[in-house]
């Protein structure tokens, strides 16, 4: 019983390492370094990185900008009674997406292969932007406008669901994102 007794050699720190241990420490450390370098490497050579672009913003301003965008680029409404506007902003433009209890607003229609600057912000609590089935997941804060440049690669109908718990109707917070050719 020795791990529960004081070390038998009083100067245990001079006891030599075992070879198994030494080899493993070296191998494990190398692996840890590789894992570290993967992150900066991907920033340089990879395609999927979050922007560092974010601003403090207030909900009023953000929703005004969103409304202006809707006015300009609305193409139709969806959801029957709900009349959710669908907007088709030009490629390369700034696109606003509001998260609020319990909806995403408005609905976006983007063009495959083109880039868009999507501004994400919450009007109230935390929400989770989760684009399915691509499976891109981003935290959405109130008071922080997060700008992400995305390039949809393929046409289709995608879903945006909320994956940060935001109260009792959290599971109803779902919307769509269209990508057209």
């Amino acid at each position, binding site marked *: 019983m020795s*791990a529960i007794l004081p070390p038998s050699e009083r100067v245990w720190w001079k006891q030599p390492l075992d070879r198994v241990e030494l080899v493993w420490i070296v191998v494990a450390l190398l692996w840890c370094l590789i894992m570290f370098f993967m992150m900066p490497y991907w920033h340089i050579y990879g395609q999927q990185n979050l922007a560092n672009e974010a601003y403090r913003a207030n909900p009023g301003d953000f929703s005004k900008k969103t409304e202006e965008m809707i006015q300009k680029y609305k193409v139709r409404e969806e959801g029957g009674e709900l009349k959710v506007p669908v907007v088709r902003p030009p490629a390369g433009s700034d696109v606003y997406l509001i998260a609020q209890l319990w909806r995403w607003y408005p609905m976006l229609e983007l063009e495959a292969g083109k880039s868009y600057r999507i501004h994400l912000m919450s009007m109230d609590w935390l929400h989770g932007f989760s684009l399915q089935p691509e499976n891109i997941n981003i935290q959405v804060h109130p008071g922080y406008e997060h700008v992400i440049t995305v390039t949809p*690669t393929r046409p289709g109908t995608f879903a945006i669901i909320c994956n940060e718990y935001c109260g009792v109707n959290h599971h109803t917070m779902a919307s769509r994102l269209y990508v057209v050719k």
Partner: protein
Amino acid sequence: MALNRMFRTCPSSGLVFHEPAEKLMRWNAVAAVVSLLVGGILAIGVMLTRWQAVHLLPPDMFYQVLTAHGLNMLVFWIIFFEIAVLYFAASTLLRCRIATPGMAWAGFWLMVLGALVNNYSVLRGDSSVMFTSYAPMGAHPTFYLGLILFAVGALIACFVFFGTLVVAKAERTYQGSVPLVTFGAITAGIIAVFTIAAGAIILIPTFLWSVGLVAHIDSLMYRTVWWAFGHSSQQINVAAHVSVWYAVAAIVFGAKPMSEKVSRGAFLLYILFLQLASAHHLLTDPGLTSNWKIFNTSYAMYLAVLASMVHGLTVPGSIEVAQREKGYNQGLFEWLRKAPWGNPVFSSMFISLIGFGFLGGISGVMMGTEQLNLIIHNTVYVPGHFHATVVVGTTLAFMGLTYFLIPVMFRRELMFAGMAKWQPYVFGLGMAGVSLFLMGAGTLGVPRRHWDISFAGNPFPYEFPGAAWLMMGIAGVTGMIAIVGGAMYLLITVGSVFLGRKIQTPGFQHVRARDGVAPAPQPVAVAIAAHHPSIGVAGFVAPGTFALAMVFLVSFVLYYFINWKYLSTIWPLK
């Protein structure tokens, strides 16, 4: 003072218990098990609701039950048990009286009060905010108050633990350095102190906000400080359960650490490189730069991960050496085959080690990589990951230790010994299934903390792939197996403690510390036999463990790069 000096030598294990300390350990362990019972009952509701084909609870109740499940399990069960482990590592292993038992009781009752107040707030129904209680979503003030009381109690317990170490040193109850297990517990204790400080910094203002004294809590500040508390507390769990692994290796096999230097160094790394621990929870949050994220999740080289990889080798390595010295020296794995698989103390510990490493460790590092986090953040992958770390890892290790402590500390024979043999397998494998299949579903995008992935009645529903539904269903089935395993544990422990046959110690009487306790054993002068020359293969004393470690490494590398591959297929972002 005289009363404070009652000692008892356990006839079966030779451990020396200070009676007031022993009583504290027993009560903390009992409070832990009660929390586990409550959390376990709630787990049934959580699991059977997420298993979409059953979909047991209505939404408001599901979120309420999930909040209470997280709190009773992650906070109350784990921390009550950890306090018992701290007292054991200080008072029992150092054969020392516990410092200020009165304070220790005050701490205990504060923790009990805090747990009750917090549960009351969730029961009210207006505090279903999950254990993370992200502001600006607010709970009833008693929610935060309960947690604050609990934390203050735990802090007092940490100081009683440190006080006991000081007493042991002053009264020379041990010679040389503290045992490795105590060293690990000290690591846990130190991390606990700054964890609780972070908890105070975030929970006190939030409490004031909930009663209207503070106007605004910033959501990003909240998440940053909250996770400095929430994540460091997971590092306490790791330090505690690794200490338990070493203790079990020593108790069951008489194993001796391969080298004290390496094992202690690895514990030290936990303290030094406990990354700015909130960072890997904030990888997809706005307002933090990539440099900050990359540096703080890894400190440029992942030294805390390295520490766990080291323990993952040295614990089984020390068992292998002990077994080989006993004569199980054939081939790579005779030592493992001939291990006491029917002894729940050992099997719990070994399943805990493997589950923690292979399922929890690998997935945790993957998730904590800045870009890879994009494909799992807030999906059910996350609970999958931490049911491997904190349930298969910590909980199962603690369960194994209980089987050792019931005869030793409660002085009762284990009831249902046949069932106890099976319990670690039922619970461990059931839980491993839960982790694995939740992770699988998370990879397909299934969100966590979500009542209805069918989006019934929603104007814009999303249809998850069939495989996601299937995996949530299998997680449900394996979850029920884990529940059965948990119920077996509760039956065995509660049954033994209250109804088990009493173990009588012939001629037992209380003794005073100074004149009663045998002197600490003299260090045996081990001729440093040029490192066990007679055992092992190819110059390695623990070749089997090394082979296992290589299997681990290969799985790790493959899984890690598979996820980069997956990441590279999603839409370009910048």
